[in-house]
């Protein structure tokens, strides 16, 4: 049996002795679960109350490796517990339920569960749960190795972890607001350079948010309270050397976005409610956006919330650091284009040292329906009604960074992967929208788990230069499908295709847009495509938006009912070398032509289509990379892929898939 600290001390023994906390109000199930876990040679602690579980976890932060919790509990909702654990302790949480409803499963994933088991729990399933721990740890350590590690003294400045989950959401809201206010202050501190150890070598030093650092951060946030949790104060509380306010700011943004999409949504929605409508916001968006961009994107949240729709279920898109790829365009984000609630996240891959890492602003507009769409372009109203949801998944490793519109300097915030689980959950998130037919969602599948490899290549969103603005909204929302209808050339024209990019711009076309909206993908030479894949951007087409595209008409009709068109299509599918950039097989659908895209499928699936001139070349790469993509994100994908594939099965027909394969061997 290993010692009480992390298992990686004795990898050979693992998973023997893995410390599991089991929570279930039903004594029968709890006993069975406990016995099963013991039989797997885990070290089990049980409780039948979520509150007790939280207390246990808080009290002994390092004493547990994994939490298994029932969904339906009398004293606290299992999802809430899930959120809290993810936020505060960053432990992998597995949900358990007798109810295997897809919606519930999706909800679980959205809240950050790394797995969702159905009762009766079987031994075989429990034998595998340790992988979640490993996965998370691996990312953690990977992060640490890669970047200079911010070491923090162990003491927490404050242990304000007492706040309950409910408090958090309010805190989040206030935090958002606060952040926005602080935007101006942070303007001058644009510089993103927090590499303690090696500032000179990296253009964008990364701050590795290790678990301890993150814990301190969380403690500080809790202590301050949401309304006061401004980066400066957090920084002071954390009392960590070499941590800049900038780091904290971006982490803060990512923290909320990442760790709990739901919280994020809540926050946004709260903010949104307070805020003027997106249109109004847009009107002043430039200014605010600029402000926001300077901050780490919290401001965006506000606009995002404009739609005020954040619903938990609709929560999906969160640009995570992974998403943002490096866009060369300095002004990756198009401010104007953000209609309601566009959230831009520019995420600089931690690994990237590229100077031109751009922020990729994943704009995640929050629709009124609570779906996040990408209101990229001015079509605010469109967006408002748009049900497209763009879910951006960002790499756990990196935090999203809001782009500053005006600031060409890419903001790179490398987020330490302190939330490897987030990565997972994000991935899961990615999956979720898919299944959820209710909202068109543009999903970013940015599983960019591999910091090194991924560098968030594609910036789905946006941002790249301007283009974004006009078609973003339409593009995003309308979902990729629309792009399909666009002649490839158009798409490409619009898109910012960079020669070196692997990703090549992925044109996102909105239905409304006359031109394809192109999402520029970061052009990481080496595996932009892969990144693309991993970060498949999935756009769900808004039905309304499709109308502009003739080919999509039919599709549009189909998808009308489903509010979601989760079609992720990048670039014009037709005739363009579609590059299938789906991170996961299931996610990738290459629409060679519109006909291929089954409207229904599109509804359900988000797939990333990359059309890129270079895509052809990369096709092979993509496919291969996809398969062989190991860096980080493969891990992430591991579970995600499972999830996605299982989910996608319903959506993607085998024939379609083979169709794709036919085209893209």
């Amino acid at each position: 049996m290993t010692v009480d600290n992390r298992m990686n001390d004795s990898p050979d023994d693992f998973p023997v002795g893995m410390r599991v906390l089991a929570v279930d109000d039903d004594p029968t199930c709890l006993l069975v679960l406990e016995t099963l876990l013991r039989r797997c040679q885990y070290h089990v602690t049980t409780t039948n109350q979520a509150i007790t579980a939280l207390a246990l976890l808080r009290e002994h932060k390092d004493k547990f490796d994994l939490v298994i919790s029932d969904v339906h509990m009398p004293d606290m909702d299992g999802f809430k517990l899930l959120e809290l654990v993810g936020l505060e302790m960053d432990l992998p949480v597995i949900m358990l339920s007798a109810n295997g409803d897809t919606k519930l499963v999706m909800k679980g994933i959205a809240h950050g569960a790394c797995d969702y088991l159905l009762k009766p729990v079987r031994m075989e399933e429990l034998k595998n749960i340790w992988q979640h721990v490993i996965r998370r740890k691996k990312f953690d350590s990977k992060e640490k190795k890669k970047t200079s590690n911010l070491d923090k003294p162990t003491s927490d400045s404050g242990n304000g972890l007492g706040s309950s989950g409910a408090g958090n959401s309010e805190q989040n809201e206030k935090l958002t607001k606060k952040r926005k206010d602080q935007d101006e202050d942070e303007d001058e501190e644009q510089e993103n350079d927090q590499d303690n150890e090696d500032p000179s070598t990296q253009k964008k030093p990364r701050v590795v948010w290790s678990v301890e650092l993150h814990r301190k951060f969380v403690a500080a946030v809790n202590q301050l309270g949401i309304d006061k949790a401004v980066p400066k104060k957090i920084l002071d509380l954390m009392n960590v050397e070499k941590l800049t306010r900038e780091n904290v700011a971006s982490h803060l943004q990512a923290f909320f976005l990442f760790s709990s999409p739901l919280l994020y949504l809540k926050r946004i929605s709260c903010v949104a409610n307070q805020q003027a409508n997106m249109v109004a916001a847009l009107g002043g968006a430039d200014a605010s956006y600029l402000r926001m961009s300077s901050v780490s994107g919290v401001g965006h949240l506000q606009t995002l919330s404009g739609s005020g729709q954040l619903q938990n279920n609709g929560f999906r898109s969160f640009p995570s650091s992974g998403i943002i790829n490096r866009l060369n365009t300095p002004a990756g984000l198009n401010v104007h284009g953000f209609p309601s609630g566009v959230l831009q996240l520019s995420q600089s891959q931690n690994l990237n040292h590229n100077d031109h890492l751009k922020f990729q602003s994943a704009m995640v507009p929050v629709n009124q329906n609570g779906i996040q769409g990408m209101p990229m372009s001015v079509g605010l109203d469109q967006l408002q009604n748009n049900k497209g949801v763009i879910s951006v998944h960002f790499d756990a490793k990196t935090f999203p960074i809001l782009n500053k519109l005006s600031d060409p300097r890419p903001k790179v915030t490398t987020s330490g992967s302190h939330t490897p689980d987030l990565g997972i959950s994000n991935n899961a998130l990615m999956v979720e929208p898919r299944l959820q037919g209710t909202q068109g969602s543009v999903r970013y599948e940015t599983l960019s788990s591999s910091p090194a490899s991924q560098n968030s290549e594609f910036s789905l969103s946006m941002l790249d230069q301007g283009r974004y603005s006009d078609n973003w909204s339409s593009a995003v929302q309308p979902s990729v499908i629309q792009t399909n209808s666009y002649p490839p050339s158009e798409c490409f024209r619009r898109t910012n295709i960079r020669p070196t990019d692997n990703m090549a711009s992925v044109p996102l076309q909105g239905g409304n847009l006359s031109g394809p909206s192109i999402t520029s993908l970061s052009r990481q030479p080496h595996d932009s495509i892969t990144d693309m894949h991993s970060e498949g951007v999935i756009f769900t087409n808004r039905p309304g938006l499709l109308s502009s595209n003739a080919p999509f008409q039919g599709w549009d009709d189909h998808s009308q009912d489903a509010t979601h068109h989760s079609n992720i299509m990048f670039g014009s599918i037709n005739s363009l070398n579609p590059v299938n950039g789906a991170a996961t097989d299931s996610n990738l659908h290459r629409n060679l032509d519109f006909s291929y895209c089954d409207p229904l499928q599109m509804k359900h699936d988000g797939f990333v289509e990359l059309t890129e001139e270079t895509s052809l070349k990369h096709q092979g790469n993509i496919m291969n990379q996809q398969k062989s993509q190991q860096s980080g994100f493969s891990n992430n994908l591991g579970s995600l892929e499972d999830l996605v594939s299982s989910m996608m099965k319903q959506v993607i027909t085998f024939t379609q898939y083979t169709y794709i394969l036919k085209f893209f061997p």
Partner: protein
Amino acid sequence: MLGLGADLLWADMNRLLAFLFHQGVLDEQFLQLQQLQDETSPNFVSEVVNIYFHESEKLLTNLRALLMEREFSDYKKMGIHLNQFMGSSSSIGAKRVRNVCVAFRAATQQNNRAGCLRALEMLEHEYCYLKNKLHELFQIEQQRALAAGVRYPAQN
């Protein structure tokens, strides 16, 4: 070595088990429970099942109370109870009970009170049947243990 009585009882027990499996009253989850029983937890199965009975009776009482209300409208609460019932039943391998719960839950989702009533009755019936059979099983097990005497510690 087992006495003749113990052998016979063992056979009886297996026969009963086979019968229950065949009828669909129990499923392989129950087998898994049995496998979990060993020297470290010698009474595991009976412990779990007793807890199950205890909880289920509470649930059934609640369900019936809810349905018998004059202005019954809390389908959601029934759903919650049912969910727990389903979970525990499936955890011990009570397949038929669980299936009735599924049907019951469907009725609650449709706000079908009559359907719920029918389902509740069926549930109670199935539950009673299961309980009787399991009691029987445990009795045989106990007798077998006693008959085996030296080998097994006295179980209760």
